């Protein structure tokens, strides 16, 4: 595949992840290449969130190694903050900072962590907010925004750090249906720009539209992997077929 020529950005290499005695991932490997959109789908509890959290060092692992451009990703190492600047994450529950305005939410980390010039960051933040249609909300507080608006701010907040990879963990799962589209469209536009992304989602139509590569996960194993076309049109495994069938009423 053409991906192999591209540079490997995140490499999850034969890792084992357990919570106490409960083994979630066993000898699991996955690489993310520059410019690709990897979509991870699978039934609830199969370990999708865990994988994303491991990719930016939020979750310790018991065996194996995760690297970002060859550098070890480990929540306990001092280098982790530098890596996290480059690996942005957006959460299902938005997690905006409620005591800060929208603009402050977006500006905080670039100024505090990256020590960038305030004026320059502000300009960029306003541009990004305008891009997602929220320029006029800059002085509002998160509580004054709808779920969809909050999630768009969360994406902008991650973008303002100039990350190389973005991790999305079911970012529309908490939203009312009519707000899902406004958020997904922002993510689709990022894909068009060639941003590298790892997306966990239950929105199958969206997954099909955006994915360069689909990973179907079941019980902590990669059950099937392929292009969007391959996975959604011609699933090979029984499990994948079953899984996709469970969504069909949504598509009709």
């Amino acid at each position: 595949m053409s991906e192999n020529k591209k540079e490997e950005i995140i490499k999850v290499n034969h890792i084992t992840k357990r919570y106490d005695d409960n083994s979630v991932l066993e000898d699991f490997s996955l690489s993310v290449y520059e410019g690709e959109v990897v979509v991870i789908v699978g039934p609830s509890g199969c370990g999708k969130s865990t994988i994303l959290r491991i990719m930016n060092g939020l979750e310790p692992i018991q065996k194996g190694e995760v690297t970002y451009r060859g550098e070890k990703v480990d929540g306990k190492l001092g280098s982790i903050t530098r890596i996290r600047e480059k690996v942005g994450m957006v959460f299902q529950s938005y997690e905006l900072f409620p005591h800060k305005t929208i603009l402050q939410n977006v500006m905080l980390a670039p100024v505090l962590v990256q020590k960038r010039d305030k004026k320059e960051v502000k300009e960029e933040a306003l541009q990004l907010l305008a891009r997602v249609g929220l320029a006029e909300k800059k002085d509002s507080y998160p509580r004054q925004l709808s779920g969809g608006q909050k999630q768009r701010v969360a994406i902008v907040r991650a973008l303002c750090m100039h990350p190389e990879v973005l991790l999305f963990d079911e970012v529309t799962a908490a939203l009312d249906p009519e707000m899902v589209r406004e958020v997904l469209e922002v993510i689709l536009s990022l894909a068009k720009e060639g941003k590298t992304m790892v997306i966990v989602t239950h929105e199958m139509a969206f997954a099909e539209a955006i994915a360069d590569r689909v990973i179907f996960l079941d019980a902590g194993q990669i059950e099937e992997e392929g292009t969007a076309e391959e996975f959604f049109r011609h699933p090979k495994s029984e499990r994948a077929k079953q899984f996709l069938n469970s969504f069909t009423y949504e598509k009709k």
Partner: protein
Amino acid sequence: MNWEVIGSYLPLYWKAMLLTLRIGWIGIVFAILLGVLCAIVRFYKIPVLSQLAGVYIEVFRNTPLLVQLFFLYFALPKIGIPIRADFCGALGLALLGGAYMAETFRSGLESVAGIQTESALSLGMNKSQVVTHIIFPQAFARSVPSFVANIIFLLKETSVFSAISLMDLMFTAKDLIGLYYKTTECLTLLVVFYALILIPVSVLGDRLERRVRHAEFGD
């Protein structure tokens, strides 16, 4: 009611109120510092210190201030640590208040932590940046109502200072009643002066509460 008597007592009450305020203010400031410190130690489960803080909080929350003051004022000198009455009052108040403030602030910290921390970490912040910019401001905002309630509680508690012969409001009232038997006037003044201390605190507390909670809760 004899207004002339009241007029002549006013300066004494005024002086007593200043004493109550002076000791109360120092005690409360240290109570907050001590409380925040203990809350952090407990929240981050720092070994040994966390257990010590736990014991301290249990002991001081479960004994009356009067007993604590007696202990500090009468027992400490016996083991060679003499202590001034006003210092003792402030210390007692700080220790009692610290125990209450600690629990208040800890529950504030607990209600914020978790995924807010993760979201801040994922933006590349280090632990101390997360604490100072994300956890603390929110925990503090959430704790303000209980902080204010604690402060009012502590100011009321100062009425036992008279037991270690500090000439506070209570002492002054009791003393004057004992000397001149003007009970009604003395007690009326006592109520008025306590209200004079506590109502402004309550009003200011309300304001502060609304101010710090504005961002998050909008009320």
